[in-house]
C-alpha cells in the first residue's frame, strides 16, 4: 500500500476505565448464568419499558438478545455460523436479521457465547422496538422457553408537531409502563417498589447526563476516546442492564478521565489526522476495521448509537440536551404514574417519531440533518455508513441520507455488510479495498513512522 509519513503524533495513554467496564460486563453475564442460584428472575426479550424496571423489583435480570447476538458475532465465527445454520434448518428464512439468526440458533443449540448452556429464561418481555422486525423474536423466545410473556408497543407519528397526537402516543407509552409493572408484579409475585425505582431513575438520568458530557468532549481535537474503545461501554446500563449504581460510578470515572485527557490533549489514537463518524451498530465480527482505518490516521469519532445528539449553541459550541433532572422544580415524581409519564418523556417515546439514533427513527431529511450536525460538531472529514443486509430498521434512511451528504461535498462511503451479527456473505478483502479507496481518493495513505 502506498504510504505517507505521519505529520504529527499526539500523546496517548491507556484508558483507565477499561478494566472496570470489562468487569461490569463480565458480571452481567455471570449474573445471567447465576440467576437461578441467586433466586433472580431471568427475563428474555428486549426493548420496551421492562428494561429499566429492575431496580423497582430488585430480583430481575433482563437479557436483551441484541447484545448477546453481537457478542456471539464478536466471539467466534464458527459458533455464530453454527447457530445461524441451526436457525435456517428450522425453516427461518436466511434473510432474517443476523441478530435473530444468531440468537434463535443459540437457543436451539443451547450454547451460550461465553461457554456452557443457555440459561433458562423464566419470563419473556418484548417491546416493539423502533425496529419493527424485533417483536416477533420475543414471541419466538417465549414459545421456545414455554414461559409467560408480555408484549408492549412503541410507536410515534411522522409529521409536524401535533399536541393531541403527541399526548395520545405518549399516553400509550405511559400505559405500557404501568401495564408492564402490573404484569411483572403478577408474574414474579413481587411488589413494585416505586421509591427504589424513582431513585434509580434519577441515577439513570444522571448517568445519561454524564454520557452527554462525555460525548461533548469528543468534539475536542484530538479526540480523547475513539469509538472502537467507546463500544466497550456504549450499551452498559442500557441494552446490557448492568447494575445502575456501578454503571453510574463507571460513567463518573469515564467523564473525569475524558476531562483530564481533554485538558492535557491526550488522544485516543496517537496519529489522529482524519476524523470520521458513523451510525448504527458496526459489524461486530469485524471491529478490526477501526484499527485498520487508524493505520491511515483516520479515527472514528462517536456514533448516534450512544443515544446523544448534540445541539448547536449560539456561541458555536455543541452541547448535549439537558436532562430533566436539572429541572427538579418542574418534575415531581412520586407515584408510579408520575414515573411512567416522566420515563416516557425522557426516553423520547411516544409523540413524534424523530431524533433517536439510527435509521430506526428519522426520515431521510432529518437523518441527513442529524449526520450533518455530527460532521460539524465532531469536526469530521468524512462519514462511513453501513448497509446492513436484512438490517432493515438500521438502514432505511441510510442510503438517501448518505447521498444527500455527498451532494453537499461530504465524503461518504457506504459499505454492504451481511449484518452486524452475521459474518455470512461478508467479503473482508473487498471491505478493506473500499476503505483503502475511500482514503486514497481523499489523498491519504497509510502512515509509517
Amino acid at each position, binding site marked *: 500500500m502506498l504510504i505517507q509519513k505521519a505529520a504529527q503524533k499526539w500523546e496517548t495513554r491507556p484508558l483507565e476505565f477499561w478494566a472496570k467496564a470489562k468487569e461490569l460486563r463480565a458480571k452481567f453475564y455471570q449474573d445471567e448464568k447465576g440467576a437461578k442460584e441467586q433466586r433472580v428472575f431471568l427475563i428474555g426479550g428486549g426493548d420496551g419499558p421492562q428494561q429499566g424496571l429492575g431496580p423497582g423489583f430488585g430480583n430481575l435480570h433482563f437479557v436483551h438478545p441484541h447484545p448477546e447476538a453481537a457478542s456471539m458475532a464478536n466471539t467466534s465465527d464458527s459458533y455464530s455460523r453454527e447457530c445461524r445454520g441451526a436457525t435456517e434448518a428450522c425453516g427461518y428464512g436466511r434473510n432474517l436479521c443476523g441478530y435473530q439468526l444468531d440468537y434463535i440458533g443459540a437457543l436451539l443449540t443451547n450454547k451460550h457465547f461465553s461457554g456452557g448452556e443457555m440459561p433458562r429464561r423464566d419470563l419473556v418481555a418484548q417491546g416493539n422496538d423502533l425496529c419493527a422486525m424485533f417483536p416477533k423474536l420475543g414471541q419466538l423466545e417465549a414459545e421456545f422457553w414455554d414461559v409467560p410473556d408480555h408484549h408492549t408497543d412503541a410507536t410515534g407519528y411522522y409529521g409536524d408537531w401535533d399536541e393531541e397526537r403527541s399526548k395520545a402516543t405518549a399516553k400509550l407509552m405511559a400505559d405500557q409502563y404501568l401495564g408492564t409493572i402490573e404484569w411483572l408484579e403478577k408474574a414474579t409475585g413481587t411488589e413494585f417498589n416505586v421509591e427504589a425505582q424513582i431513585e434509580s431513575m434519577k441515577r439513570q438520568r444522571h448517568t445519561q447526563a454524564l454520557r452527554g458530557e462525555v460525548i461533548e468532549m469528543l468534539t475536542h481535537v484530538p479526540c480523547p476516546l475513539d469509538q472502537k474503545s467507546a463500544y466497550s461501554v456504549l450499551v452498559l446500563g442500557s441494552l446490557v442492564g448492568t447494575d445502575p449504581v456501578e454503571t453510574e460510578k463507571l460513567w463518573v470515572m469515564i467523564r473525569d478521565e475524558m476531562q483530564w485527557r481533554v485538558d492535557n490533549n491526550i488522544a485516543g489514537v496517537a496519529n489522529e489526522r482524519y476524523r470520521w463518524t458513523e451510525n448504527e451498530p458496526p459489524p461486530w465480527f469485524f471491529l478490526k476495521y477501526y484499527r485498520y482505518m487508524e493505520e491511515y490516521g483516520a479515527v472514528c469519532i462517536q456514533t448516534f448509537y450512544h443515544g446523544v445528539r448534540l445541539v448547536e449553541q449560539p456561541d458555536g459550541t455543541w452541547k448535549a440536551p439537558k436532562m430533566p433532572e436539572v429541572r427538579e422544580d418542574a418534575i415531581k415524581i412520586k407515584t408510579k404514574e408520575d414515573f411512567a409519564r416522566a420515563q416516557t418523556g425522557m426516553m423520547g417515546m411516544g409523540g413524534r417519531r424523530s431524533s433517536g439514533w439510527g435509521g430506526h427513527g428519522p426520515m431521510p431529511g432529518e437523518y441527513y440533518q442529524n449526520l450533518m450536525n455530527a460532521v460539524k460538531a465532531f469536526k469530521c472529514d468524512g462519514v462511513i455508513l453501513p448497509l446492513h443486509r436484512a438490517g432493515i430498521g438500521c438502514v432505511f434512511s441510510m442510503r438517501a441520507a448518505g447521498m444527500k451528504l455527498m451532494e453537499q461535498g461530504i465524503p461518504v462511503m457506504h*459499505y454492504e455488510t451481511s449484518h452486524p451479527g452475521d459474518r455470512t456473505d461478508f467479503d473482508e478483502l473487498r471491505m478493506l479495498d473500499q476503505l483503502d*479507496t475511500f482514503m486514497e481518493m481523499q489523498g491519504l495513505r497509510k502512515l509509517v513512522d
Partner: protein
Amino acid sequence: MVTAGIDVGVKTVKAVIVKDNEIVASGIASSDGFERAKAAEQLYNQVLQQAGISASDVDYVIATGSGKMDVSFANNNVVEPVADVEGALRLCPSAKTLIEMGAEQVRVAKFDETGKVANYTLNQMCGAGLGMFAESMARALGVTLDELNEMALRSKGAEPINAECGVYAGLDVVSLIHNNTPKEDIARAVIDAIATKVKATANLTNIDDDNIVLLGGVAKNKGVVDALNRKLGVECMIPEQPEMAGALGAALIGAREVQ
C-alpha cells in the same frame, strides 16, 4: 525510468510496462484459478521479454486487482479504482466518469482532470451484472460469450429478467427457455440485465455527464455496450484495450512514486 503495473483479477491477469511515460509492452493471461501468483509472475516475465528488458531494469512494480497481495515481486500495491482512474485518463483524457466491468466486480468512479476521485461506488453482495454471470448464462444457452453478445444484438426486444440477483436471474432464464423464447431474445434479456445492474450501480455516483469511459473485459462485449449506451442515453467511450486500464494506471502511478 521503467515501471510495471500488474492487475490480478479473478479471471485474468494483465501486465503493462511503461518506459518514460510510454507503453512499451503489455499482455493478458488467465489467472489460472488458485495459481494466480504464478500466473502473474509468468505474465510479467513474458511482457519483460516483449519489452526486451529484464526485471532488474524495472524501477518500480505496482500491483492492483483483487489478487494484488499475491504479487510477491511488486514493490507496492494500489486499489483498483485509483489505478483505473489513472489508466482511464491516459486512455481517454476527456473522460470524467469510468465504469469498469470485470468478472466479479463493477466499479464506477467520477473524477476530475487531475485524477482526483470525487465519488465512486461498486457492486457489493448482489451481482447479476457481472462477467461471470454472463459467462454462466452463455454456458446455459450452449454458446460462447461472443455469440451471446451477437445474438443479443439481433434480438428486437426481450422480457426483462431479474437484474439484482444472479440466482434469480438464472431462474428467470430457465423460465424463458421452458417457454421456448427465441435464443436471441434470451440473450438480449441477459445482456440487458447486466446493463441494468451496471446502470443501477452507476446511479449511486450521481453520474451527470456524457464523458463516460467503459473499462474492463466486459467492455469488449458489444451487446453489453450497446445495452449500456441505450440505458445511459449516451455513447460511452471505449479505449482499444479496455481491460488494460488498471495495469496501465498502476504502472503510471509507479512512475509518479519513483519521481
